[in-house]
């Protein structure tokens, strides 16, 4: 691993809360590592668990699934299904051998630009410590 | 007669590996014996047949045909590096014979399959002959034998504390030369004879004589409905079969680059013959099951003069609903007489 290696994080962000929160981090000019790239989805409930695996397959070192706080879903209940699905999926991926730090599920509201930046900083630190992900990943 | 002590086996394989070849050997993984690239791990000795056959080595499950990169108008295409030489230790006589059947298809027709040919030519098959038959074995019913050298470069006949090597090909002889200092000279009766006395109850129950011709006349026989009814349309029988060789070609695209690959396909999958317009010439289980068995028992013999089965017994052991070649031959025998 070269010393300037930076992890790659794929984030799935609900457009109403987390994506807007990331925008707020931008308008507030909060600096965070250029490791994350967001996929904009209507709701965290749109995130198929297999999307996460696909990201790891194709070379993501970490994946973030983020949406509105429970109770604040634009569609009332989408994130409550997310909570069930990803409670299982995160444990299952760890059961398959993935390090817990590589998948994070977070509730980040449109007002939490600060928190979005913080989560990315934390994840980047964790992943730098772990190094590149090789698990479940296809040969480049 | 030459004798290779069992204790010398790892040293010999290590030398073959040292020559730059990939050495395959049966290893016990969580109770399942599998042919794996060997890197010094314990070699399994108690097995009838590994999960995967020689097919896995010569016609891999997935194989890259070419790689490409760029835009459609400006595409750089690259062929993969030619295969390295390989040595397969521990294959059984049935599996070795199966490769000769595949030779008929891939090498001896008007079209020569380059991938198969290159692997075949660089692979040395070190067969370990059988001293007992497994409960599902029936090689004798399809012209094989527990000690037959067909398809092997070297046959190692197991005896107490070691093997008696027999080298039908020069490739086998060459492989054995790497063990010349390990080989001893012993007195022993012809080990090939032992094959005749191996008990193989299943083989006794299979009557294949004249079956090919009778099947030809009974393509539309209603028995196919009954036989195929319990099939779940998985590809297990075809994938474990050392003689089934069907493959599909597919492209994997990765934004700006990709590769064209081929990998096993199964005539039992319902989309096997599915065409772009939605037409499927073999839409039902009956069509597909009949295809599999007619191919093995009728079309292949008509084209190449022998059944497309070596009696390894993997389908017998594997099929979750007992729809395997001996059972089908038995059921056909009952209705066709």
């Amino acid at each position: 691993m070269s010393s300037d290696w930076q992890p790659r994080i794929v984030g799935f962000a609900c457009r109403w809360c987390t994506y807007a929160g990331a925008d707020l981090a931008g308008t507030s000019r909060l600096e965070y590592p250029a490791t994350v790239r967001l996929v904009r989805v209507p709701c965290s409930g749109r995130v198929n668990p297999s999307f996460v695996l696909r990201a790891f397959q194709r070379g993501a070192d970490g994946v973030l699934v983020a949406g509105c706080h429970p109770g604040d879903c634009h569609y009332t209940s989408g994130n409550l299904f997310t909570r069930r699905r990803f409670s299982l999926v995160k444990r299952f991926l760890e059961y398959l051998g993935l390090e817990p730090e590589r998948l994070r599920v977070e509730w980040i509201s449109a007002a939490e630009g600060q928190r979005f930046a913080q989560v990315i900083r934390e994840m980047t630190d964790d992943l730098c410590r772990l190094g590149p992900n090789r698990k479940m990943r296809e040969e480049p | 007669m030459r004798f290779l002590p069992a204790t010398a086996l790892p040293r010999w394989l290590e030398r073959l590996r040292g020559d730059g070849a990939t050495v395959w050997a049966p290893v016990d993984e969580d109770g399942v014996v599998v042919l794996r690239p060997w890197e010094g791990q314990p070699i399994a000795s108690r097995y009838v047949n590994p999960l995967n056959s020689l097919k896995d080595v010569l016609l891999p499950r997935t194989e890259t045909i070419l790689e490409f990169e760029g835009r459609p108008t400006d595409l750089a295409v690259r062929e993969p590096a030619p295969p390295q030489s390989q040595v397969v230790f521990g294959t059984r006589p049935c599996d070795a014979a199966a490769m000769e059947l595949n030779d008929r298809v891939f090498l001896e027709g008007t079209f020569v399959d380059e991938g198969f040919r290159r692997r075949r030519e660089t692979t040395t098959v070190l067969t370990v002959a059988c001293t007992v038959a497994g409960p599902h074995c029936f090689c004798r019913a399809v012209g094989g034998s527990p000690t037959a050298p067909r398809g092997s470069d070297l046959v190692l006949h197991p005896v107490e504390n070691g093997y008696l090597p027999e080298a039908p090909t020069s490739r086998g002889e060459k492989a054995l030369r790497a063990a010349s200092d390990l080989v001893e000279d012993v007195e022993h009766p012809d080990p090939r004879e032992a094959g005749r006395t191996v008990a193989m109850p299943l083989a006794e129950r299979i009557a294949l004589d004249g079956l090919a011709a009778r099947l030809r006349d009974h393509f539309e026989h209603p028995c196919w409905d009954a036989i195929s009814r319990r099939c779940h349309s998985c590809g297990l029988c075809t994938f474990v079969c050392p003689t089934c060789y069907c493959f599909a070609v597919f492209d994997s695209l990765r934004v700006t680059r990709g590769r064209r690959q081929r990998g096993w396909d199964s005539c039992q999958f319902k989309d096997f013959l599915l065409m772009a317009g939605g037409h499927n010439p073999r839409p039902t289980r009956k069509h597909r099951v009949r295809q599999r068995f007619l191919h093995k028992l009728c079309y292949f013999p008509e084209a190449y003069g022998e059944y497309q089965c070596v009696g390894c017994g993997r389908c017998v052991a594997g099929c979750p609903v007992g729809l395997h070649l001996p059972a089908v031959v038995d059921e056909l025998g009952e209705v066709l007489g």
Partner: protein
Amino acid sequence: MPRIGVVVCWCGHNIAGTVDVTQVTAAAAAMPGVVYAEDYKYVCSEPGQDLIRRAIADKRLDAVVVAACSPSMHEATFRQAAAAAGLNPYRVEIANVREQCSWVHRDREEATVKAVALVQAMVAKARREEPLEALRLPVTRRALVIGGGIAGMQAAMDIADAGYQVLLVEREPNLGGRMAQLSETFPTLDCASCILTPRTAEVARHPRIELLTYSEVREVAGYVGDFRVRIARKPAYVDWDRCIGCMLCQEKCPRKVPSPFERDMGFKKAIGVNFPQAVPNRPVIDREHCTYFEKGKCQVCVRVCPVEAVDFEQRETVREEAVGAIVVATGFDVLAPAEFGEYGYGRYPDVIDSLAFERLNSSSGPTGGVIRRPSDGRVPREVVFIQCVGSRDPDRGRGYCSKICCMYTAKHAMLYRHKVPDGQAYVFYMDVRAGGKGYEEFVQRTVEQAGALYLRGRVARVYPEGDRMLVRGVDTLSGQTVEVAADLVVLATAAVPRGDARELAQLLKVGTDAHGFYNEAHPKLRPVETMTRGIFLAGAVQAPRDISETVAQASGAASKVLALFSQEELVADPLVAVVDETRCAGCFLCRPVCPYQAISTRVAGNREVATVNPGLCQGCGACAVACRSGAMALKGFTDEQILAEVEALCLRTGSPG
């Protein structure tokens, strides 16, 4: 392969200061499918938009990717620009290289690499895009208002006054709802029926309001702009068209039964109206108590009716109506205090609930407005009011505040003092919540002028002693046990949803909270809307409210209906779910995850498959994940598109990262 154009915005220094725009443009030009790539100082400016329009025309583009600020800023702008050039507006994608790149990263090289990846992802998405057409739904400019109380009437009047037809459905035979039972209103103490009666008359004679009393909604199908509603009218056993409202039948009917309207403290006849000012002034036969229905003889009403309007053979009739919007104003109920055994309600006649106290105060009530206690008709000298009976009591399942009780209890104490000048009112309370214009002053007057004694604390027990009730509680301010001997005890019982609120909510596909109050779409920003487009809330169906709030909310709901009706047709986002029927197994795992009940069953060939009502679907995509076979796709966010984006974002090319 679609022809894609990429336009990269400098946003002056905002993007170009951190991201090497030229390099991004060059990288974009080399991406598969891209036939045009250009950068521009301000793409959102008129010349910038013109650049997009010209590129679409000149390069025959099938899709455009704009690398610029967040889609929440200018997605609409660029879509309009594309549409003006003849491109399907849903074939424009935005790569967010400002808020999520140039503004948050400092290293120019890293930011540039990331910007390229973001563009790559949007190009990959755009390649897999279908042109989408906005859904256009016709609007039936006619509203249904469910509930003929003050909320429903207000909403109906506002809508009708604006020129639209209204269908007003009320389950009781007459308008007025809960408010018709009230005596006076706080904080002004004007009489409820003085406000209500003119309003009911106004509603009844409004040329654009069709009144359907004694009717209930049975079925609701369709969606915003085009609801199909089945409404059942219960049999009154009186032909209201013939009836002239003389009420001879009521007068002569020999059968007298306790009146629920009077909280069983007064009587009604088996035929008649609930109260004299009822609108419409038409009688119904109470089938359960009518002697004819019980025994097959009597028919006094038939004999006295001058117009032969009594019809024992009348049946329920059901009609189907088309409406474009629905206002739900079904109000509330009060908790049956039977579950509070410690207060003795039901056991002792002189323990009553507040609604009964309203009736005792009402000049049209069972006592003619003189406060007399039920047991012996004596005017009570000491009255104890107990607040928060069932409210703010999480142990018994209701943690919420019923909101109206503090004020009406103060009103009761005040009215009592007015009517019984030497009487003493005691109020057991937890907190006095008097937020509202003139409310706190009113409570102060109750204490200072009406002399009501407020005691902070819960009442532990009420039990009889002699002909009085002993009320024992703890004054939590002094810590003393308090015991009051009262002639009458009045319980301020919790406001609760109607018994069948959940059933109606299911018909309407509207969510309810844990108690059964209807959920608004957003507590702050969309308080009168529901999650089902075209269905609005007014009044206490949503949460306990007083009259002025109810009326304000009803007008708010009406204004939402009017906004809907002012449109020629409804335009809906086409980003909705759609079913591939050849793949759908009909397992319906998608159905329970849909918050809008937009998924229903359709027979396709010989089997049942799921189908999505695009008018109801809001495009959340939960169903697409619940579907294992991939038969359910969310347009604009298909599996193929998201997977392609992921793939592009994972690609590691060139320098850092």
